[in-house]
């Protein structure tokens, strides 16, 4: 069993969360009494919102002295309770195995999530005579999903009838596809019925981004997907909450378009958009059932939608042509789109790109292409905290030791987590960390440019040389100021499997050009919304 000392428990929770995403098995972290426990909050909320199975242990006070001002004592269970799917407080040493079995069951059943196991000092230090039977575990609960539930048969039939009639149906996929491991079922349905697939940031990798039926990211940022949503006559939403970013603050899709919502958490259905048909169940199971229900007429459906399906690669090519000035940019400082293009070129199919919250995630969410289906792009979109990149990379690298792992993070997010570079080095991880260095809290600065007429307050950082910092910490460090240096820098990082490599990429400092949508000089700011 391996246990890694981390420098901040938040990072431990992030690393455990990323490990779970790659393996579908519960990630495990712990924090000691008080500050150790409360530092877990941000990582556990990420897991809660993203549906990630995590088991977190917190040490608690010795019950002989609780509530007598013991050092580091707080109402930690109350602080953590809304951050997890369930709190399990262990009151007897004898019940430790039983309650850990319960923790696995809660973490992996239904919509997966984090569980806090709170262990008082006297329970952890106390002894008991156990029998072998005390240590029974249900093996189905050791990975998510523990069990699968299929949508109601009559609902599947209604949904299939609706899809069969559609001329321009579209599948919108969220992160639930990964938890369900529904890749084959999705591809089978999409190809058999000639239905294009759009994805959220969390849903990237549902089908390969380079597949001819992939229309890319939808929502706040989009290549061609939003236009296709507007022109669609039926939407199949799979494992997606249809939250703010996926819907451009609830502007998309139009309420007039019939929507089929396949979702594991029943109460999420209809929360933001009323569905015409609700399919409550596992994504893979539901997609299999829909494919079966539509199988008989698949040939006709494909023929009828042949022109529609052929549109997708054509439109994607046109988008690429339009975006080529940015994707191929040779400007200095480095254009974010060029960085994404170089990531697309450098990263092999089995690699994992971990994307930090903030604009590093938005840029790569829009422009990074996964080459195969699966967990090859991991953004922390549950809570979108900055700082996830490095610890998420640590968890992913430990989960997939054979795969190249690259973590992309902003300089502000990296500043939060610098200490964890020591953890990554100590663990001997050949992880590559790309720091998007704009000497700013980029998203905030871009908002201050767009909405507050360039009145910048507390959004600038001091220029740092993260490559030099990495070298001083015993890691490899490369500073990139010219985009033509990127291929060699990325290749070197991916090749060095003995220690972390930090690639410090100097990107634009112009706040008008920090966000991925368009040049923000032409941005439209709408009341009640925020600019993209």
């Amino acid at each position: 069993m391996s246990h890694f000392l981390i420098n901040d428990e938040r990072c431990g929770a992030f690393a455990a969360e990323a490990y779970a995403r790659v393996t579908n098995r519960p990630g495990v972290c712990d924090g000691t009494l008080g500050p150790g426990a409360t530092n877990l909050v941000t990582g556990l909320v990420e897991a809660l919102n993203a549906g990630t199975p995590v088991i977190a242990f917190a040490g608690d006070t010795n019950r002989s002295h609780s509530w007598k001002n013991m050092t580091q004592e707080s109402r930690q269970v109350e602080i953590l309770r809304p951050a997890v799917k369930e709190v399990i407080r262990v009151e007897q040493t004898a019940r430790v195995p039983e309650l850990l079995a319960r923790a696995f069951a809660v973490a992996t059943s239904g919509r997966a999530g984090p569980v806090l196991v709170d262990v008082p000092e006297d329970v952890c230090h106390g002894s008991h005579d156990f029998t072998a039977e005390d240590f029974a575990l249900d093996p189905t609960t050791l990975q998510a999903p523990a069990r699968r539930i299929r949508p109601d048969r009559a609902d599947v039939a209604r949904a299939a009838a609706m899809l069969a009639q559609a001329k321009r149906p579209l599948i919108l996929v969220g992160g639930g596809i990964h938890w369900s491991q529904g890749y084959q079922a999705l591809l089978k349905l999409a190809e058999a019925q000639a239905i294009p697939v759009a994805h959220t940031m969390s849903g990237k990798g549902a089908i390969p981004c380079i597949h001819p039926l992939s229309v890319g990211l939808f929502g706040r940022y989009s290549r061609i997907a939003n236009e296709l949503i507007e022109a669609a006559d039926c939407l199949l939403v799979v494992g997606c909450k249809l939250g703010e970013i996926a819907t451009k603050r609830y502007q998309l899709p139009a309420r007039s378009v019939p929507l089929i919502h396949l979702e594991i958490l029943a109460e999420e259905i209809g929360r933001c958009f009323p569905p015409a048909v609700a399919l409550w169940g596992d994504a893979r199971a539901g997609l299999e059932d829909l494919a079966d229900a539509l199988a008989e007429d698949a040939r006709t459906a494909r023929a009828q939608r042949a022109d529609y399906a052929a549109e997708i690669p054509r439109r994607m090519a046109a988008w690429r042509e339009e975006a080529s000035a940015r994707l191929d940019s040779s400007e200095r400082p480095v254009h974010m789109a060029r960085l994404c293009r170089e990531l697309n070129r450098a990263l092999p199919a089995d690699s994992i790109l971990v994307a930090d919250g903030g604009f590093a995630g938005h840029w790569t969410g829009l422009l990074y292409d996964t080459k195969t289906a699966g967990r090859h792009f991991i953004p922390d979109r549950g809570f979108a905290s900055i700082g996830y990149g490095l610890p998420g990379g640590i968890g992913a690298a430990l989960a997939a030791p054979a795969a190249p792992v690259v973590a992309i993070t902003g300089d502000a997010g990296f500043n939060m987590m610098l200490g964890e570079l020591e953890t990554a080095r100590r663990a001997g991880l050949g992880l590559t960390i790309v720091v998007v260095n704009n000497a700013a809290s980029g998203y905030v600065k871009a908002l201050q440019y767009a909405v507050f007429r360039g009145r910048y307050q507390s959004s600038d950082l001091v220029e740092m040389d993260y490559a030099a910092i990495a070298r001083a910490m015993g890691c490899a460090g490369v500073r990139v100021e010219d985009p033509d240096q990127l291929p060699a820098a990325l290749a070197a990082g991916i090749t060095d499997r003995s220690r972390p490599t930090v690639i410090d990429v100097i990107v634009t400092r112009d706040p008008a050009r920090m966000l991925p949508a368009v040049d923000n000089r032409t941005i439209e700011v709408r009341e009640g919304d925020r600019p993209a």
Partner: protein
Amino acid sequence: MSETDRASNRPSGRMNGGRAMAEMLRLAEVGPMFGMGGFQLLPFYDALASSA
């Protein structure tokens, strides 16, 4: 491990709560764990050290 192996690998006898935690995680074949110790959970850390 197979279910037969898991069953035959179950521990028994007198042990502290921290060791019982570690034994369950061993049987569950969990991956790497991440944390920072404190007195309350040190029996758990001690059990991890002796299982390595």
